[in-house]
């Protein structure tokens, strides 16, 4: 599997357009989903997806096969998303100084009091209200299915931090969904 990734990366670096399209078709769907849930809109997600793959194209020379190509792409992609959100938050706080930055992103209260089943739309809305850091960890672990050691590798944190961020996200979601 790793040798196939190295071969594909090499073909892409050598300008093989079909190889790069193969890379795109394999990973764009999940990366777009990640960008969509991090950024919050389809247009931003599309722009972020373009930036992710352009960045990946420039950085393919640094892929050494220590992780899978997918994990490597997720790492680049998540960094793009987090950088974008930091920039967006900085601009929003300039335009609206009266907002409490510490309060922005904190849950406003339960969204619903559904006793047994969580509706997917409610969960999507609640996820958008999570702080960026624990939203990233939650999306990678609970939505995309990465193990904690993979989440840690993607986010550049320890496995313990990944677990605590996912725990924090689940606790906040539980509160927002009216269950805790």
């Amino acid at each position, binding site marked *: 599997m790793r040798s196939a990734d190295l071969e594909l990366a090499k073909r892409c670096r050598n300008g093989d*357009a079909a190889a790069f*399209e193969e890379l795109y078709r394999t990973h764009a769907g999940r990366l777009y989903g990640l960008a969509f849930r991090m950024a*919050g809109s389809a247009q931003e997600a*599309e722009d972020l997806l373009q930036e992710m793959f352009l960045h990946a194209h420039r950085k393919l020379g640094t892929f050494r096969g220590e992780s899978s190509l997918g994990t490597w792409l997720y790492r680049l992609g998540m960094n793009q998303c987090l950088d974008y959100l930091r920039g967006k938050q900085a601009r929003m706080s300039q335009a609206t100084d009266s907002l409490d930055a510490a309060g922005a992103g904190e849950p406003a209260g339960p969204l619903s009091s559904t006793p047994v089943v969580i509706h997917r739309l409610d969960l999507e809305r609640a996820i958008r209200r999570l702080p960026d850091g624990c939203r990233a960890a939650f999306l990678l672990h609970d939505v995309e299915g990465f193990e904690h050691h993979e989440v840690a590798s993607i986010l550049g944190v320890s496995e313990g931090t990944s*677990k605590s961020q996912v725990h924090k996200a689940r606790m906040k979601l539980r509160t927002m969904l009216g269950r805790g």
Partner: protein
Amino acid sequence: MNCDVYQAQIGDFVDGTLDPLSEQRLLGHLATCPDCSAMADDFNTIRLTARGLDQPVPPDRAWTRLSAALEAERYQERRWWTFSPGARWQIAAVALALLVIVAAVTWTALRQVTPAPAPAVVATAPGPSTADPDLVRSVETELKLAEEHYEKAIAGLEQITNAGRSTLDPQVAAVLQKNLSIIDQAIGESRDALRAQPANEVAQQSLFGALRSKVTLLQETLTLINEMRKGNQEGAARIVSGLNQ
């Protein structure tokens, strides 16, 4: 052990990664503690629901935009002096146009007046549109600058696509022209609305949406011209199919 200790293990428990001895102890506690048992149930429900969320699908144009941008980057990587003066001018115009597009789109996306992510906070904070005329003028100036960036990018792309238009099948060229006319009409209507009401956010978003669509269409046209020059019928057919939608 108290509930805090057990609750710290619930995450690993629902993930199926808790060691057997700890799991046994935790299960014994959950059988007697309704709070911890509810927490475990909720974590499990959240995890399962999250795993079943729909996967948003990127639009087809995402690939055509990307391949146009990649082509421009590849041209940039090749040595400058191997190209004829005419080709150098075209390559520079494409690269500059794409750079301006990315800058304008990023600038516009970050500067647009949009609702804050936490509705409760917005409800209690005073909005800038009601309290700060200087901020409104500043936003108008920046919107005008972003519009100028788009127009420059469009002008650059139009020059290159017009130069290569003879490569295109007449029917395809007619479809492209029709699509461009529709977008130009939308741009005109948005501008008319903004002249009447400069702070009209819907008209602003409509204008930038239309400008963005025009840039995307011109990029796709450029990619189509390149595919036809390379003789890649399959690639060209895919792009034409997207344009006809």
